[in-house]
């Protein structure tokens, strides 16, 4: 019989014990923990020098504006822990990272290939868009049932691809609604996504060098897009210049009565994310942006956020969404109208026509690996 003095893999307490240990190490070494993201640590020194460390269980990435600080951190980590793979970030959590003088390119080409192999779609015919424009999927359809286990596996595999690919976000969240009872038409939608991936396997995000950092949020919603329960889908994309950094597509929790209402709700949930991202940016040394611009294509939603006048059409809106009003009043957030033609968030809420889809995809910062230079 052995008595454990330290944690062992497999114990329920092991991850917690590890986090306590590494957190203690960082705090001892004058790192500051970000209060809104517990795995983000920063260390600042004189003359604006900064070191940023992000932790993912036992993998960590670090960057900073001073080579000396980076080296010092590396040395000290090697003294305390046994480290491997000390190199320029290249392959992290299945995401391929390419760093050069033009910027940083991230993609999941290898993972995408594995997904295609897993679902036996390596030899399929590629298509140009992930969903047939205007297609509606319903929970109750009369087609024969598909294999639910396989369907769930496919949804899970595709979900991770959205880490670098905002163009898949809408379709993946759409197919995930039918996980409990998929039919053949749902499975065909999955296969179409896989065919689209086959055709666009090289796509990834490019973050260019020398861009200004201005956080802008694009929001959009459809109206009663779900044919079963008439709920709307909200979508938003955060852009810091050219590349999108955060995106979401989600069915709203409540049924709405007017087209203004879902737009108002998405702006409110986007505002929460805005505040979080601003805090992260402040932690890693980017202060100065007074307010965040939310670009929304509904004028009436903007008006509603500015004037606290209740009228017949809006008096039922749940109080929590008026959180947005307070933020607008405080001046932290500014809503402004934006042309639907260039609305990036459209890609999160509807199945677009091919031309528009390609245009918005390009605008969100996506580019094929072979086109970088």
């Amino acid at each position, binding site marked *: 019989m052995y008595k*454990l003095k330290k944690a062992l893999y497999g114990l329920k307490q092991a991850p917690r014990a590890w986090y306590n240990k*590494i957190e203690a190490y960082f705090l001892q070494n004058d790192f500051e923990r970000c209060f809104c993201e517990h795995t983000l640590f920063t260390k600042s020194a004189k003359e604006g020098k900064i070191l940023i460390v992000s932790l993912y269980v036992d993998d960590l990435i670090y960057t900073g504006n001073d080579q000396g600080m980076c080296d010092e951190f590396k040395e000290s980590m090697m003294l305390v822990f046994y480290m491997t793979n000390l190199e320029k970030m290249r392959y992290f959590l299945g995401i391929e990272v390419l760093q050069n003088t033009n910027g940083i390119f991230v993609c999941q080409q290898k993972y995408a290939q594995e997904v295609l192999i897993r679902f036996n779609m390596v030899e399929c015919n590629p298509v140009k868009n992930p969903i047939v424009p205007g297609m509606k999927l319903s929970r109750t359809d009369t087609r024969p049932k598909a294999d639910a286990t396989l369907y769930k596996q496919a949804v899970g595999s595709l979900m991770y691809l959205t880490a670098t690919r905002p163009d898949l976000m809408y379709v993946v969240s759409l197919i995930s609604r039918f996980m409990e009872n998929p039919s053949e038409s749902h499975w065909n939608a999955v296969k179409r996504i896989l065919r689209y991936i086959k055709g666009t396997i090289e796509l990834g995000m490019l973050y260019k060098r020398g861009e200004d950092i201005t956080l802008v949020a694009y929001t959009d919603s459809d109206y009663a897009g779900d044919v079963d329960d008439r709920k709307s889908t909200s979508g938003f994309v955060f852009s810091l210049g050219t590349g999108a950094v955060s995106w979401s597509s989600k069915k709203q929790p409540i049924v709405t009565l007017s087209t203004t209402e879902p737009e108002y709700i998405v702006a409110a949930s986007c505002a929460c994310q805005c505040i979080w991202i601003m805090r992260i940016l402040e932690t890693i040394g980017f202060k100065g942006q007074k307010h965040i611009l939310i670009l929304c294509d509904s004028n009436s939603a903007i008006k509603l956020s500015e004037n606290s006048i209740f009228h017949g059409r809006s008096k039922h809106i749940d109080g929590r969404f008026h959180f947005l009003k307070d933020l607008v009043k405080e001046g932290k957030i500014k809503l402004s109208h934006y042309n639907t033609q260039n609305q990036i968030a459209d890609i999160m809420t509807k199945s677009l026509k091919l031309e528009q889809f390609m245009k918005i995809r390009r605008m969100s910062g996506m580019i094929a690996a072979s086109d970088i230079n």
Partner: protein
Amino acid sequence: MVKINIITHVHTPDQQQSKLDNKSKPCILFGVSDELKAYRLFDPVNKKIIINKDVVFEENKGWNWEQSGAENHPEIVVAAKESSDSQSEPEEEQPESQAVRNDSHTPTLEIPAEGRAKRNRRKPVWMADYEEGGSIYNDSNTSVMLAAETDPVTFEEAIKSKKWQEAMVKEMKAIEKNQTWELTHAPKDVKPIGVKWIYKTKLKENGEVDKFKARLVAKGYAQHYGVDYTEVFALVTKLDTIRIILYVAAKNGWFIFQMDVKSAFLHGERGNICSTSSWIYRKGIGRKGV
């Protein structure tokens, strides 16, 4: 009264059968289910127990176990394989009049003489020119290759090969270096947790073998919530944060570096681990190969 061991025909649900499939499959009655108002049946083809009440009996026909055990089993399995093939390639089942008699190769499904008579399956005409490939999987070379690609599951399997032995030695060294445990006598009322080895082949980005990794894990599933532990915690970053860092680094032209902490969880101090879970039982993981 239920007569055991007689042949029955279980109806296949409509969703699971397509137009040309059998509507039922022959099974052997094993008795009545304890949980449900239904019969317990044995499916000799898939070797499974089925519980179903949609059943037709052939009361005067019994299953001949001696015959089926010795001769029929391999053939039944072959037939099952064929019938699953025929779902994907319906052409294989041709009308009997067109088929050429080719009895020497024909695998037949022979449910014992007193069972329901099945028609003979023949190879289709167009198959005459082909060599059947189904047998390559039995080839000894392929099975060795397949085994080499999959990781061992048990200690006994792993200890046979050198590479896994080395991996285990490495892991034991890491554990000892961290002074993870000490040998003691456990108090009477302590229930120790077992440990086991997990083996995994790690691949590089280009698909080449990176290393063979052996990891000693405690059987955490033996711990009980509220007794041995009170919280489960995983330390992960939101991908949004990582992308923001990437963007900021790209904008400023900083380079991002990465590193892995080796055997990270072994570093954790055992501060708040409850007493019952801090004992592990180490029989059989042993020092045999180390």
